[in-house]
């Protein structure tokens, strides 16, 4: 087992517009990328539970050419609305860091 913190070269979050938060998992080599992509761990059920959204709100797109997996979820509230904690959406990656991927 290894965590996404250990396996990714970049694990970032950012707004995709004012309503969505997008998370990019990027890898340095194709073996690691394919290990994570094909593990089945990064699935709508996991993302929905980590980000407290419903599964049909989750988008997961593997992007082979850049060895990356893109995950997109709705923001908690629109950027800058009352109750927001992260206007740029730049620090929402934390829950993914400890996700474990089997060998």
């Amino acid at each position: 087992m290894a965590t996404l913190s250990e396996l990714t070269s970049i694990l970032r979050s950012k707004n995709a517009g004012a309503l969505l938060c997008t998370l990019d998992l990027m890898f340095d080599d194709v073996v690691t990328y394919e290990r994570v992509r094909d593990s089945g761990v990064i699935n709508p059920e996991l993302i929905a539970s980590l980000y407290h959204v419903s599964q049909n709100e989750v988008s997961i797109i593997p992007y082979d050419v850049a060895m990356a997996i893109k995950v997109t979820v709705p923001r908690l509230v629109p950027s800058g609305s009352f109750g927001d904690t992260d206007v740029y959406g730049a620090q929402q990656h934390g829950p993914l860091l400890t996700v474990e991927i089997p060998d």
Partner: protein
Amino acid sequence: MNDSLSMMATTGLLGYGFGEEAFRHGLEMDLDFIAADAGSMDPGPHYLGAGVPFVSRKAIKRDIGLMLEGALDKDVPMLIGSAGGGGSAPQVALVREVIEEIAAERGYHFRMAVIHADQSKDYLHEKLRRGKIEPLGPIEDATPRTIDETHRVVAMMGVEPFQQALRNGAQVVLAGRATDASIYSAIPLMRGYDPGLVWHLSKIIECAGAVAVPKSGQDCMIGILKPDHFLVVPAHPDSRCTRMSVAAHTLYENPSPYHLEEPDGTVVTVDSTYEQADERTVKVAGSRFERSNRYTVKLEGVRRAGYRTVFIAGARDPGLIAIIDDYIDLCSERVRQQVAALDIGEDQYKLNVHVYGKSGTMASREPVQDATPHEIGILAEVLADDEETSKAVMAKARLALLHSDFPGRKCISGNLAIPFSPSDIPVGQTYEFNLWHIMEIDDPLEPFPIEMVDL
């Protein structure tokens, strides 16, 4: 169509700066035009609401000054999109004033087009009545009330207003809110280049140095279009693009790297190929543009959300930290009672307390629930329709948080370490996005009036 068309993106955001050395190298590359995006909604709704940029006027003047000098010297067009950050009337006016100031100071003469992107409520009501406005993502349908409540709204133009401005003889185009890629796609599409390649290149270079390695944040980016592929290369000879840095760029701030939406269609990168042409240059081919059967522009609108007052303090009493969530609930109830005595009803304000050290970054999405930090940061915020109410509620909230009792309290002189005097910080009128929709239009020029100015 010529064999080749070259463009330079000076900076990913006008006012964030670019290296003069990179810029001067870029100018020597036989360019067809230079351009910069000036906009982003990333800093949130305030800047569109207040009509101000999120970079300084000085920084805008520095970047535009160099670009004007280069464009006039090489006699090529210069395009700016989303002027002033949000591309709204007061933001465009500020950048226009800077350009006119530079022209006057240096004796520059040129023809400029100023393209407006603000949308009137009457126009939006008419579009809504005809069913032409729909949500772009998870937001409620727009209603007549949504439009009535809007404080300021812009639409994002496509390439057509830029093209019309150039046909009108503009050398400098200063546009309000525009899609980032339209700024760079307007001229190549006029000259007949393949739309898939044009739009994909524009999407990559609109962030300028973001695809350069090493990332200095100061690099200018060169894009070279050919009939069947395009090249991307940094202007500075010491930096380079890698296959990976370019391929990865379509991930950034987009929900999908394969489908990128523009007003009249979608850039599809599913079959795009990325190849290292030389040490510094990446070659891309195979990108497609799928034309839509309708023309839609994105609307970005804000409404007034009220006057905010904030208050920051620290707490390091273990007894308080252990029960902080219950304590905040208790304090909120005290505030409700005490402001009622001031004739402030609970529907007249909103109070939120962020607890840094526990859930300040992710709020209810924070997965770590059992941490026991030795200290926490408290950030209280109040929103109310007027500043007096906002301050009055915060004064009561501060008092409640500072002096309410809790079981086992030993330090009865005050529960918080307050770093500043004054402690309560009014930050003025705030805004929130209420329009994040798309609007179908028949004529891509209709909502974007073009004003020609001879300087």
